[in-house]
């Protein structure tokens, strides 16, 4: 099994010049960055900030006081909120903290305020540099409907659809024109709520009525739009990077098709579904969209791919959770690139200079019980041994002794493996998961091993319905008796009540054993 020799963009060693540890010049508009986030991404950003010779300031709620990011930061400031999540969503408090700490820039990470145009604007108004695109771009791309319409007008492919708002009277008819199968979505919705798949057009009218009443109930808004549904779609996205000088490059695609509850679990690059031609097309379209929008900073254009065609789904105007797979195949630190762009530097490379190498897979480690419907789990991390070695990278926001609670999203860490081929990467992933020890809180590590071992995954036959189509992946395998005896032996030998009871029996009787006259 082949792998790459060890290199780490975190410490700055390696082949690609773009990841050499270069400290930023003193003329930079900021020398100190406030990271408005938590967990693994906060730590990951702190590392790059410090590597570049900048000062890392981290805000945190009290429950995160012992988090790795907080311990590594140059300065950690506690923020407050009615709930822990509320604290990280409190824009004014965060800006106030940044100013008081002397930070010149704010990096929002992902989630929380990262796509909040109002927050971006407030930062700028306060004289802080927001590490991300302009508030206008965030606004335009943040609303699904306006983003879609912008992309369509620019001539890029979008899924056939019908938007009710355009002409409510003809909505049902236009929806019928979209053709089956189609997806009816609430315009005001999100998170997969209220969406219905219609396969039989005869039921269209009644499904629309039901969707409307659900939209009313969940979001207080019954307006809808209908979109062509791609059967067994594959989720393919393209990483783009633009500077403030109009340069935009793409860093190829990532496939994120393995999902549950519309949340990604496994991402990889390159996508096993794309031919070189399709890759070229989809990346060109993504870069084109970004260029047209005047995009600066790191962003991701998401597409739905199926039956040989792709349609624009949405654009995320921030760093994605799965950015590491792109980083390792290109040897580029995307957070560093974000900071450089935010500081006004032009991109340091052209499209032709970007040559990816090998195959990378990211596996998200969640605190959840896959076998029982992916219910989130809690517990104290009693011991933690993360895998390491050539081609293995772990972005982790947890440490031994930490409590995993229901306060936040259950993602604990990301395991990224990089190897010359997809098969090598899968093998490296399986071995790394085998060596990953996290005890005290149930995780999906065993589930991920079963997933990587599944023949359909090895064939690259993945799509967003993969886990529903293969329920055996989530199911815990039965424990056969030899294994059961080993586990019971371990439990027995480490438990005082059993040891004491065994030691209490007098030697004679223990030696005679279960004898009867």
């Amino acid at each position, binding site marked *: 099994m082949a792998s790459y020799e060890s290199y780490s963009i975190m410490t700055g060693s390696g082949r690609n010049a773009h990841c050499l540890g270069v400290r930023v010049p003193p003329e930079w508009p900021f020398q100190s960055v406030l990271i408005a986030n938590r967990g693994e991404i906060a730590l990951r950003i702190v590392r790059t900030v410090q590597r570049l010779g900048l000062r890392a300031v981290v805000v945190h709620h009290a429950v995160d006081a012992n988090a790795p990011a907080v311990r590594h930061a140059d300065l950690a400031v506690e923020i407050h909120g009615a709930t822990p999540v509320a604290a990280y969503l409190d824009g004014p408090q965060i800006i106030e903290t940044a100013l008081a700490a002397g930070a010149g820039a704010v990096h929002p990470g992902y989630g929380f305020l990262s796509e909040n145009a109002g927050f971006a604007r407030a930062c700028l108004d306060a004289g802080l540099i927001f590490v991300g695109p302009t508030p206008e771009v965030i606004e335009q791309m943040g609303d699904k409907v306006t983003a879609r319409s912008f992309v369509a007008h620019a001539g890029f492919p979008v899924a056939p659809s019908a938007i009710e708002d355009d002409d409510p009277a003809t909505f049902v008819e236009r929806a019928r024109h979209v053709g089956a199968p189609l997806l009816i979505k609430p315009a005001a919705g999100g998170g997969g709520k209220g969406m219905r798949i219609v396969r039989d057009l005869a039921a269209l009218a009644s499904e629309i009525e039901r969707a409307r009443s659900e939209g009313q109930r969940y979001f207080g808004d019954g307006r809808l739009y209908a979109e062509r549904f791609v059967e067994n779609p594959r989720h393919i996205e393209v990483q783009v990077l633009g500077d403030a000088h109009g340069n935009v490059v793409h860093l190829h695609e990532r496939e994120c098709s393995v999902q549950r509850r519309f949340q990604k679990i496994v991402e990889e690059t390159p996508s096993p579904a794309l031919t070189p031609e399709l890759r070229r097309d989809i990346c060109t379209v993504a870069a084109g969209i970004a260029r047209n929008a005047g995009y600066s900073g790191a962003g991701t254009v998401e597409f739905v791919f199926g039956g040989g065609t792709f349609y624009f789904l949405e654009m995320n105007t921030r760093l994605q959770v799965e950015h590491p797979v792109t980083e390792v195949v290109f040897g580029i630190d995307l957070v560093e690139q974000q900071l450089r762009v935010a500081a006004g530097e032009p991109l340091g490379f052209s499209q032709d200079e970007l040559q990816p190498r090998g195959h990378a897979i990211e596996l998200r480690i969640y605190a959840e019980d896959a076998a029982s419907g992916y219910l989130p789990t809690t517990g104290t991390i009693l011991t933690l041994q993360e895998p390491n070695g050539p081609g293995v990278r772990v972005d982790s926001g947890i440490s031994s002794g930490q409590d995993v609670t229901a306060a936040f999203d259950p993602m604990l860490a990301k395991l990224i493996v990089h190897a010359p081929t997809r098969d090598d990467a899968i093998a490296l992933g399986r071995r790394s998961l085998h060596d990953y020890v996290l005890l005290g809180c149930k995780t999906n590590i*065993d589930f991920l091993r079963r997933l990587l071992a599944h023949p359909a995954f090895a064939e690259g036959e993945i799509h967003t319905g993969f886990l529903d189509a293969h329920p055996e992946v989530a199911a815990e395998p039965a424990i056969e008796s030899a294994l059961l005896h080993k586990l019971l032996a371990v439990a027995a030998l480490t438990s005082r009540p059993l040891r004491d009871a065994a030691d209490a029996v007098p030697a004679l009787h223990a030696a005679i054993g279960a004898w009867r006259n």
Partner: protein
Amino acid sequence: MAHAFRLMGVDHELWLSRSGGVYQVHVGDISVAATLVPRGEHAHELTVRDVAERVVIARHGDDVHVHLDGETYLLRYSHSLERFAGQTADEDEAVARAPMPGAVIAVSVEPGATVRRGQALLLIESMKMETTIVAPCDGTVQAVHVAIGQTFDRDALLVTLERLKEAP
């Protein structure tokens, strides 16, 4: 009478005996000799049926977390006094427990309130879903153990009710 550990929802009775310096684990009709040697930092060497392998073990109260051959398992000690305890004579209390970890969004009742079976007690949020916790029986609210914004683990005690006695 045997001890038991619960593994994946099933109680397994077992017994440990010692003869000379060697421990034997008895499960049903099968007995195996087993040794466990610490190798530092939660790691151990387990030898069962003469095969030695590496195992990582972490204990927390009655919970034994095990990492063996790349898989993780949780065994929970079940004391026979708990396993065989029948209903307590005091059936007057009824409780509402959390079906999954989450946070409290809204509380609909106060101590002293009379509730009917199925009536909403509080609203929780978990995995971006909202779930209503309802009264398991007719009764009076004795105590609400959580507040808005508070997070809790699975099976946490949320509300205690005093069961309403049926009219004779």
